[in-house]
């Protein structure tokens, strides 16, 4: 059984800059009580998520909607276990596969096939196991002869095909995806959706951040609207998309 449960969760980023990144200045500041190096403590705290309480259960296909900087990516990274919350708790169960950045673990000089193995490694899949899956992954990408070329020659759409195929080669219980998916072409998205349906059935979770209302309607059944790191609305995906459109119209 997979679940993600957040309780009053907040994430604050200290933005270290200038003096606060210098040990020398921090030491000078400590010994002179800040007279000499006034800039040593110039850190700004950015609250990217603010008091978020959310339950994501088996079978939920959750769409994250919000303006740039609303906290969508941060929320995905918290769910992936990358950022520990500065306040509140995250409880989770289930094997997480996060497709946050297409290029993680890829070596642009290596061929597509080699990169399948490399990327698998970063997903905690042993190269031996990965080699057994290469053919199936290669077939899904439809990249054909391009798989024997270095990935630096790939277009972003081709990278997405490769990244998606590898990340979903073992059906994850929890799949987290950032916006980049929407850069895929229509036939790929169609195919990706069919693949998703095979495992996002009753027993797993999808969390997708996107600006494409089309994609969200097709892929998700629930939605949350994020505004300034808070959940502004929660409910059926169609209602949330309308709420977002309303909020945008209000501001315009």
């Amino acid at each position, binding site marked *: 059984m997979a679940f993600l449960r957040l309780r009053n969760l907040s994430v604050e980023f200290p933005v270290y800059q200038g003096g606060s990144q210098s040990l020398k200045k*921090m030491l000078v500041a400590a010994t002179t009580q800040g007279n000499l190096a006034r800039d040593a403590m110039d850190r700004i705290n950015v609250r990217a998520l603010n008091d978020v309480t959310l339950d994501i259960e088996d079978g939920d296909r959750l769409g994250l909607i919000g303006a740039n900087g609303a906290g969508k990516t941060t929320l995905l990274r918290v769910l992936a276990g990358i950022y520990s919350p500065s306040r509140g708790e995250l409880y989770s169960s289930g094997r997480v596969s*996060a497709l946050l950045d297409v290029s993680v673990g890829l070596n642009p000089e290596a061929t597509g096939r080699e990169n399948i193995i490399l990327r698998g490694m*970063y997903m905690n899949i042993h190269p031996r196991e990965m080699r057994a899956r290469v053919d199936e992954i290669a077939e899904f990408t439809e990249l054909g002869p391009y798989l024997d070329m270095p990935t630096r020659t790939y277009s972003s759409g081709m990278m997405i095909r490769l990244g998606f195929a590898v990340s979903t080669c073992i059906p994850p219980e929890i799949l987290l995806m950032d916006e980049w998916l929407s850069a895929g072409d229509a036939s790929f998205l169609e195919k990706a959706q069919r693949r998703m349906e095979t495992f996002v059935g009753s027993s797993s979770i999808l969390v997708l951040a996107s600006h494409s209302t089309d994609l969200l309607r097709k892929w998700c059944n629930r939605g949350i609207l994020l505004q300034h790191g808070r959940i502004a609305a929660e409910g059926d995906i169609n209602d949330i998309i309308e709420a977002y459109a309303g909020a945008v119209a209000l501001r315009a």
Partner: protein
Amino acid sequence: MSIDLPKRVSPSAAAWDDLVEGMSKSWMWSAMAMQDIRMRYRGSLLGPFWLTISMVIMIAAMGLIYSRLFNMEINRYLPFLTVGLVICNFVSTVIIEVCQTFLSAQNVITQVRMPFSVHAWRTVYRNLIVLAHNMVIVPLVLIIFRVSVDWTVIVIVPALAVLTINGIWISILLGMISARYRDVPPIVVSLVQVIFFITPIFWPPEALGIWMQALPLNPLFAAVDVVRAPLLGAAPLTYSWTVLLLVTVVGCIGTFALFAKFRSRITYWI
């Protein structure tokens, strides 16, 4: 709606799990380290053996001149210089490179969840591979200059194992400090340079006279001594092992405490 929520683990238990899990992922960090080496020497025919060749040239040139300078026979000085340089080069490169342990893995750390100790192992293992390439000079020099070495040379195996453990804690410690304070890596480079020159690598320890016994107080000397002495058919100085083991224990405990406390902050620092 009531849902029972799983228990939360303490920071030190989480840090311990990180270390254990990191250790068990040897296939992961060894493959990453090999990948690093391949990338670094991409397109070069000899790969890491370039380093070996440059070291051979350095040893040959310095051996000729410094043996005169210190009035030592070349067949005693050259083996001493070779072993000392190879080991010292390993230790000092590890100390300098580990500052980038987490900084250079920024892309991975902010995108994928994996034990932080994997990155420490990757850095140390990468340097062990380079060490293995340089090590090929050692038996050649020992044979050419007829250094008599018996089976007791086997103690270099536990000695190198202890150096590797030290590499791991230094990697986690300096990796964390350098991620938080960006002026630390250049400071470390300067310090390593100073220590390099006050450590008897180029000059024989005997030149210090009665002060020789104080040498193991310098941990870099202790680290070099426990490997170099057996390879030259001699015993390390009395306190070399004591100092080295003391540094290992204190370093591991101190680093673990800091790692437990700040582990979850690393992602925010880089």
